[in-house]
């Protein structure tokens, strides 16, 4: 699953941060999952648990969903991404590469495909906490 590749990237990135901050254990990671990419939190959590190394032995993974807001660059209209308005093939394409939304979604007011993904695009790390070496 695509979520496995993202989980691997999350753990790799968290490991790099832990090394930089000299953490011996990572205790908590808060992961934001943007609505646009439709990442399945259950699969992501399972992948994180399966792939984690000793550094993440006692890590609590908090996976939070973030609303996706789109803003038209032509008329300034702001609207919420609505998965229910898409067919399954389009939803799947956006799941793999959220930017392809520009090929399928138009501004509800002026019809332009020139919009900004203002929030809730993909997956990002919001916070990492851990215990430092004494």
């Amino acid at each position, binding site marked *: 699953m695509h979520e496995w590749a993202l989980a691997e*990237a999350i753990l*790799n990135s968290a490991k790099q941060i832990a090394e930089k901050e000299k953490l011996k254990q990572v205790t908590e990671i808060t992961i934001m999952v943007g609505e646009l990419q439709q990442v399945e939190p259950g699969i992501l959590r399972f992948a994180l648990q399966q792939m984690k190394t000793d550094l993440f032995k006692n890590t609590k993974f908090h996976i939070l969903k973030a609303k996706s807001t789109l803003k038209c660059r032509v008329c300034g209209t702001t609207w919420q991404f609505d998965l229910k308005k898409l067919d399954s093939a389009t939803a799947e394409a956006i799941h793999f590469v959220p930017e392809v939304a520009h090929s399928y979604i138009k501004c509800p007011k002026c019809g332009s495909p*020139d919009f900004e993904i203002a929030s809730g695009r993909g997956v990002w790390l919001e916070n990492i906490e851990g215990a430092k070496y004494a």
Partner: protein
Amino acid sequence: MIDPRTSIIDERLRSIHQVVAVSSGKGGVGKSMVAAALALSLAKEGFRVGLFDLDFTGPSTHIILGVPRNLQPKEEKGIVPPTFQYLTYMSLVYYVGDNPAPMRGADISNALIELLSVTQWGKLDFLIIDMPPGIGDAVLDLARLVERIQFLIITTPSLLAFDVVKKQLALLCELKLPIIGVVENMKIDKTNTIAEQTLDLGLKYLGFIPFDREVEAAIGNPTKLLCTAMGKAMPQIKKALVAKKW
């Protein structure tokens, strides 16, 4: 707020021996044709080759190769690109089809990072990347994110094209990025201007590809493409890649 994707890109490309961006500061010089012909030619010699179309707003390698519409990547701990004509082939067309993809710079960067971070290429001898024209987001992102990137530069004999290409060469030199050399495509007369100017810049002139009307007729037919003057010119370009430390 940390984007975790960039941290995994080198890992994804670790089993690839050479990553080659076929690039040009100027559009319309035949980058995609050269990238496809080079990839096909290397694969024909038995190398494991991937072809990645990074020209998101104007992809064309799928047309050059005649990739069937039903070909799709597999989902397996990421995206596993399908094999076509012995090439591991990846393109945004799998996700946009015939629809236009009107993306601005930030979108192009995000799509590029997404595909680099989730695509599982496996073991390859060469990953050939068909770049969009210019020295914008894709060039700067590859320079920033792909540690082992090398550039193969395409120009035409036109001084208009080469003047823009020289700006790209100056940028790549400034960024200390490896340039394999310059290829002169669609050559009609026998002037040596491009070769001389390339050598004056201290760079390798890898040779020329004669203008051949049959190249257009070979679109969609990889076997035919390798029989054109372009296909026949590939060995001299391949030599520059294969000669690199193995």
